[in-house]
């Protein structure tokens, strides 16, 4: 080819490419401006709006691991029952041989377990099926089941004068199901606090305690209080709503019969101070809440001044009421508390000293008698009826550790799987739940994102040390594909969001190493929105259909056109219900430096209260009543109460 011909061909192609490129760019910019209604926008990638959920990590099949959830031990102390929620299985294991002897398929993510007093019936909560299943412990076959509230995670059983009763914690519907065991039926469904996660019944059957994980949103500028709900297991009637003052994430509860106590491990949280002020447990520390049967609560520290035992979860108390065993999921430790010593300190302490006890991290040495290392992420604890053995679920090692209570040393282990170390998602979950990445192991990612979700609080993330600029905690469930991250949309990827900057402003220690950060991203991206599978197959009610029409409306009911940029679905564009762009919706607060905030995705929005960037709106309704400004957050001023309710009911389906 002659040089001139080549040059002609080359420059011709270049010209075509330039024209096509420029034209394409111009077209794409015009396209974005047209469909967002925002003329100031420049080039925006196609994936801001055009996303297929099938391409997202959380919608793809992932490895399932035999991670132990609920535990139970037979009355003779010979058998253990273990719920494997990811595998949809419950297994029976011999404590003597440490071997799994029988398996039972239980669909619907079996999570909580309890045996009746005789050990004849095993009751299982199915977290994704919203049911409690009764199993004959002898034949290991399902007998019957009953519908309960949403996402039941824990169950307790007790004999009462009115018959055997079961109390179930329904974590997503914020209520309890009180069941009679024979016949297996629901008697009442009293409302609890937010996300009830653990239940225990006093031995005399007169009161059931339900520990709630999250605080009910009230005033985002006030300390968050969560709840210990006391109900009568005989009737299901509400007795007392106790308060965990400025504390939350209660994931376990156990009763102490000799003292008429219920003990709940929890996190003492101070979200209103600058999140950088982590020294001395100033932002987060762990404790035990001791409640009497009238709901009077004293909080005692579980941590030590320079060593923390993050994410306390399960608790078991021996039948004699002498010791409590508490699993700390973030620090891989089992803490043993001498209850006689604890009671002695409480007895001699003044009312003021009791009130301030949780602030004094030196106190734990008065009653903590051992810290026993465990495998990764110990969560549930159960004690054999003869008090000889304590069983701890090592959730991220796929095993159950057995501790000899006489020596307080490991006596064996029930291996359920290989630990799944070859799976980057499993490795990422270990990073997510491990407190070793934070200053003095004070907290883990999970401390603010239980199950990858929200803790319902707003935190001061500004480094100015003033503590008056709150940012609402956002869910990590369904987070894949929704970048950029942060409320101001500053971080393009999860690795950047969780990397060096996070270490500086939050963890106050070395950043998470790159390889582990990569695993963490894998785990976060694998988190589906809450109840995603169920929602895909659920039909909308007429009210939800009406709400859907409002969400996608282009005109008001009076026929007036809604500007494109103020139509709900423009910014909250399906399938993620976010166009991943920052917008101004008139919510700039007095301490905000910008009025442009990242458009949050709406998958699972019903469960992520409070709302707006600083968490000022405690309900969805408040977005368009109390905190709507000049129709900037969607044109809603034409709504009547019917339409607002319809829209809210539709949003709950996302």
């Amino acid at each position, binding site marked *: 080819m002659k040089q001139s011909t080549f040059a002609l061909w080359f420059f011709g192609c270049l010209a075509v490419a330039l024209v096509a490129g420029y034209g394409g760019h111009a077209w794409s910019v015009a396209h974005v401006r047209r469909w967002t209604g925002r003329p100031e926008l420049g080039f925006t990638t196609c994936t801001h709006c055009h996303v297929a959920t099938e391409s997202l990590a959380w919608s793809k099949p992932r490895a399932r691991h035999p991670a132990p959830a609920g535990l139970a031990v037979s009355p003779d102390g010979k058998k253990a029952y273990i719920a494997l929620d990811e595998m949809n299985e419950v297994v029976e294991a011999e404590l003597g041989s440490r071997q799994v002897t029988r398996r039972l398929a239980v669909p619907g993510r079996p999570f909580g377990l309890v045996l009746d007093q005789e050990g004849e019936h095993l009751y299982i909560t199915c977290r994704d099926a919203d049911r409690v299943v009764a199993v004959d412990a002898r034949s290991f076959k399902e007998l019957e089941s009953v519908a309960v509230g949403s996402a039941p995670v824990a169950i307790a059983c007790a004999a009462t004068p009115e018959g055997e009763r079961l109390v179930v914690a329904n974590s997503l519907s914020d209520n309890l199901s009180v069941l009679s065991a024979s016949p297996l039926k629901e008697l009442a469904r*009293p409302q609890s606090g937010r996300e009830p996660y653990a239940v225990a019944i006093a031995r005399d059957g007169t009161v059931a305690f339900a520990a709630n994980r999250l605080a009910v949103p009230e005033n985002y500028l006030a300390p968050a209080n969560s709840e210990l709900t006391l109900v009568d297991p005989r009737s299901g009637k*509400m007795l007392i*709503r106790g308060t965990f003052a400025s504390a939350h994430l209660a994931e376990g509860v156990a009763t102490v019969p000799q003292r008429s106590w219920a003990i709940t491990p929890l996190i003492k949280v101070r979200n209103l101070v600058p999140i950088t002020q982590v020294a001395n447990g100033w932002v987060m520390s762990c404790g035990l809440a001791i409640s009497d049967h009238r709901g009077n609560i004293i909080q005692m520290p579980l941590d030590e001044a320079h060593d923390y035992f993050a994410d306390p979860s399960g608790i078991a108390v021996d039948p004699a009421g002498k010791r409590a065993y508490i699993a700390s999921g973030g620090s891989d430790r089992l803490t043993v508390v001498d209850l006689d010593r604890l009671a002695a300190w409480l007895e001699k302490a003044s009312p003021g000293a009791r009130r301030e006890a949780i602030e004094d991290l030196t106190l734990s040495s008065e009653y903590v008698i051992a810290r026993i290392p465990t495998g990764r992420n110990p969560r549930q604890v159960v004690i054999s009826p003869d008090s000889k053995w304590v069983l701890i679920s090592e959730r991220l090692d796929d095993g159950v550790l057995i501790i000899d209570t006489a020596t307080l040393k490991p006596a064996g282990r029930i291996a359920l799987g290989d630990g799944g170390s070859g799976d980057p998602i499993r490795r990422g979950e270990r990073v997510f739940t491990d407190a070793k990445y934070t200053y003095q192991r004070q907290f883990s990612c999970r401390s603010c994102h239980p199950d990858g979700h929200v803790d319902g609080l707003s935190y001061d993330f500004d480094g100015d040390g003033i503590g008056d600029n709150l940012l609402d905690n956002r869910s990590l469930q369904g987070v894949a594909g929704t970048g950029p991250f942060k409320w101001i949309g500053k971080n393009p990827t999860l690795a950047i969001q969780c990397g060096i900057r996070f270490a500086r402003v939050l963890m106050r220690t070395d950043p998470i190493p790159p390889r582990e950060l990569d695993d963490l991203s894998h785990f976060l991206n694998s988190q589906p929105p809450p109840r995603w599978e169920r929602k895909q197959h659920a039909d909308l009610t007429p009210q939800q259909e009406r709400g859907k029409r409002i969400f996608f409306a282009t005109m008001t009911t009076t026929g007036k056109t809604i500007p494109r940029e103020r139509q709900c679905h423009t910014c909250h564009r399906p399938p993620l219900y976010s166009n991943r762009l920052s917008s101004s919706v008139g919510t700039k607060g007095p301490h905000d430096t910008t009025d442009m905030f990242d458009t949050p995705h709406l998958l699972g929005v019903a469960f992520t209260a409070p709302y707006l960037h600083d968490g000022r709106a405690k309900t969805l*309704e408040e977005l368009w009543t109390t905190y709507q400004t000049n129709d900037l957050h969607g044109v809603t001023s034409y709504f009547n109460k*019917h339409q607002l309710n319809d829209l809210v009911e539709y949003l709950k389906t996302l």
Partner: protein
Amino acid sequence: MKFRKIINPRPLWAATVAACALLMSAGRGVGETTTEGLPFPIIERFENFGHDQGIPAHKVHVVLKTSDSKLWIGTWDGLCVREENGKFKRYGPEDGLTHKMVLCMVEDPKTGDLWIGTMRGLNKFSGGKITRYVQTDSGLPNNVVYGVDVADDKLWVATAAGAGVMDLKTGAWKIYDHTNSNMHEPWCYSIKGAKDVVFIGVWGGGILEHNPQLGTFKAYHDPDGDFHYDLVPDDGPINDITSWIAWKDGVLWQNTYFGMSRYDGKYWKTWVQDKSPLPSNFTQFAWPVGKYCWIGTDRSATVTDGTYWANYMLGDKGESILEIHRPKQAAEKRILPTGICNAFVLGIWADENEAWFATANGLSHGIFSPRPSVPKVAAAK
């Protein structure tokens, strides 16, 4: 004459009548034991409560005794519960109540939660804590909550802008008003769950019967259509201005400011003051107990089964008057040792053993006369 002086024949006659009545009543069976031949208990005296006992306002709108035997009152200035020492403990907006003026209350029979309607919002008193619901942060139709009821795990409210229902299991709200039902206008005064249906008392709209399963509405209007007079008795609701409704054991009671009515599912019965023992057409509250019903009017606390009547009123000098009306007999008038604290009765709670009255000037406790013991043989018959 001597004989007359020694044995007064009038008490003797009265005793004979009472004995006959006792025998007649004995034949009714244990469940229908009566006082003085009446199908309802008779109050022999009142105990009254006011500022001295800790009630913060003279006007008591509503009274309710819950299943745990606690006595709750809703007043012009807060919610109160009677403590063991007899004093009333007050809860107001500073305790989390949405508004100080309490208008209505109901207990959830399953959970024991107390639902409280106020002039600004709905409240749940549960386990010692108050949870607030207002129209801007929940699906509540309107902040003015006149009536509230719980039936089948559903909470029903009558508000100034329609009736609302919250599913207590899911938290989802629905609203019914003039745009999606045959409600005359959205001003609802009262609401009552009644087995498979819900009755809604609508100001100016009579009564609506709503079937939640079918989503249907059936309206009951005053057939004669006259605002001031019941031109055709027993033809339907006495008036469309419904001030209150109550339902018990298949019988619906309607209060209006122009008389009252009863509907047993088949027949209507109406009463006005000129043609019945009803002391006043201005009726504003009904509390059925079995087959009889306590009525609050602007002049009395009244109890009736539709045939027998007892009116507790105050005379010009404040004397406590009990009028008993029996069919085809002259009214019997008695003076009681103590009277109701005010005859403008706004709310009532009663069972077979006692009655409580919320009035425009304090709270009254009606102490029932001892009931005749029923011979076992007669009862068995």
